[in-house]
């Protein structure tokens, strides 16, 4: 097997706040293979975005990586110097943010914003950048790109702004794309089109994608593997179909049961009792789900199990739901 596009190992992140230290991430480990699409799924506060920010080196000043590695092409992004990171960011690894309207520069035309990236990373002469920017806009499916290149973000719809974001992210043909809730706030019809676009471009460029979402159904449709997060832990990491049909971590099972699509009736939907633990607590149990967990046993007081190297299906649980015969994992994303 070739080296993964990105391997995150034992990533821990803390935030210093007035009311104490928030242990936002604890020992987060996952990897994404070249050309593969994986999804990070979890409720708000589970640490999905913090993971992405830590990898991109754009954590808030109060945040600090306390342990871990993030290996991209032999470079540890978490130990890299600012100039090394600046060289990689945008060129090898790019990110699409949640709200395209606020992520774009409001006082620069979209054509120029794309050209900026091309000039910085694209190795093309400065005077060719505007024409190339128009071409990029065409490739993300914007009609009349020459005219649209001169438009400001406020003149465009949400879906169009997200296309521009994608064009910016992909301008330098990165090998890894992190998409942080790229379709939140867009209509389902637009969502489908945008997700198609990302998938098609990823396929054409052979790009790996980490797709961050709270929508389990959407994640399932678009990724080969799902990493479920809860309160800063990776609780389960499995091939998509297997995760849906045979979840092993109790939290994953409850999350699936709470997804509206899974039920025929409102009464069939199950809520998840309790809420996320306060991550400022100093007495957090090793398993941060244990206080909400219906399957809690004595063993839960010991440190969580580690994923075995090369494990296909990992659940960070001492009393997981029964295992079944492992079906053949789906390898690449659709």
């Amino acid at each position, binding site marked *: 097997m070739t080296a993964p596009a990105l391997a995150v190992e034992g990533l821990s992140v803390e935030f210093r706040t007035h009311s104490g230290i928030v242990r936002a991430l604890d020992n987060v480990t996952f990897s994404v293979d070249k050309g593969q699409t994986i999804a990070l799924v979890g*409720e*708000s506060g589970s640490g999905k975005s913090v993971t992405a920010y830590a990898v991109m080196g754009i954590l808030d000043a109060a945040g600090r990586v306390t342990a871990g590695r993030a290996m991209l092409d032999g470079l540890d992004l978490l130990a890299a110097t600012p100039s090394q990171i600046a060289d990689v960011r945008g060129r090898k690894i790019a990110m699409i943010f949640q709200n395209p309207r606020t992520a774009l520069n409001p006082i620069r035309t979209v054509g120029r914003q794309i050209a900026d990236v091309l000039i910085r990373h694209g190795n093309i002469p400065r005077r060719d950048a505007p024409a190339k920017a128009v071409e990029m806009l065409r490739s993300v499916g914007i*009609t009349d790109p020459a005219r649209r290149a001169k438009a400001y973000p406020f003149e465009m*719809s*949400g879906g*169009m702004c997200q296309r521009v974001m994608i064009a910016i992210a992909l301008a330098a043909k990165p090998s890894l794309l992190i998409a942080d809730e790229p379709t939140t706030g867009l*209509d*389902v*019809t*637009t*969502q*489908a*089109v945008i997700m*198609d676009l990302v998938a098609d471009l990823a396929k054409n460029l052979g790009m790996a994608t980490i797709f961050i979402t*709270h*929508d*389990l*159904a*959407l994640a*399932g*449709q678009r990724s080969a593997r799902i990493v479920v997060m809860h309160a800063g832990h990776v609780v389960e990491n499995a091939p*998509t*179909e297997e995760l*849906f049909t045979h979840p092993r971590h109790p939290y994953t099972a*409850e*999350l*699936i049961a*709470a*997804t*509206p*699509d*899974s*039920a025929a*009736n*409102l*009464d069939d*939907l*199950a*809520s*998840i009792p309790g*809420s996320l633990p306060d991550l400022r607590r100093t007495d957090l149990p090793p398993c941060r789900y244990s206080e909400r967990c219906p399957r809690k046993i004595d063993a839960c007081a010991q440190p969580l199990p580690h994923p075995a190297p090369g494990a296909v299906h990992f659940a960070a649980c001492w009393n997981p739901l029964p295992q079944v015969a492992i079906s053949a994992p*789906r390898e690449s994303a*659709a």
Partner: protein
Amino acid sequence: MTVLLDVADVSKRFAVASTLGPWATLKRRLSGGPQTLPKVYAVDDVSFVIGKGETVGLVGESGCGKSTLVRALTRLIDVSDGTIKLGDRELARKAARVFARDRDRPRIQMVFQDAGDSVNPRFTGFDAIADPLRRLRKLRGKALKQRVETVAGQCGLPLQLLSRFPHQLSGGQRARVGIARAIAVEPDLLVLDEPTAALDVSVQVVILQLLRRLQKESGMSYLFVSHDLSVVRLLCDRVLVMYLGKIVESGPAREVFEHPLHPYTQALVAAVPRLHQTDGERLRLVGEPRSPIDPDPRVCRFYGRCSLGTNACKTAMPKLRRFGARQVACHFAEEFVVQRISAP
């Protein structure tokens, strides 16, 4: 089923600033050209009814006029045309400003999208729930306190949280405050504008089940606005699908989602991500919607994005036609009816 709300031919048009420059506007005015400003047809000739105790879903993409329609029904804005009858009473003629003090104001209440934004940040939970009771029911003192506590209890809001401000509450608790505030004055019709859009799935379930329980207890009617079709399918008896100011399809929720007849509904349903389905049927809406500014009354609003798009579609606007319990505004609805509803 007794009808609670009867909406007939309601339209709402907003004038927009002319795209012409000042000189061109003056010239046109002097030369006797059209004097009126162009108008956005936000809601165009919409009719439907909501029965007593019924839950009706309203779906459509952003910009289709859902919110304008809802604001017109809740009488927060005035309509341009049409009638809104609540029971026997005609409300559309009354100016929104006057209706704010009307005796029927408590009968239509609304739960807004994100309670974090729609509850006054300087009001505690108690104040937020007490406000409509003070204004509309003129409750004071002990009676007020009692009523607020009853409603909070109904909505599963612990009483000790009533002294907290919105920012001290979790998303689910804020949603409960928003609901408690709306049902405090015992409305007949509760309009819910994406009440769970800002919530995580685990909390969403609880809130949806709360809404279902409240309805059973009080017999309220719901108009549930959402773009999450999986939620609408679970909660609603009937659904209205809107596209660019018009209702393009309506009918029993399950039927509409299982066998959509209008091409727009078909695309909408196909776009919903499903848990046990790896890739969507590749039925995709391409392009942007037509302009809602002074639309051509002869052209179907969906023309240009529709996979059918024949000549008939740009020469005659399809009317909403009835097929059993369904209504569809498409020239080709028959074909889909034959295709999709072969079984009784």
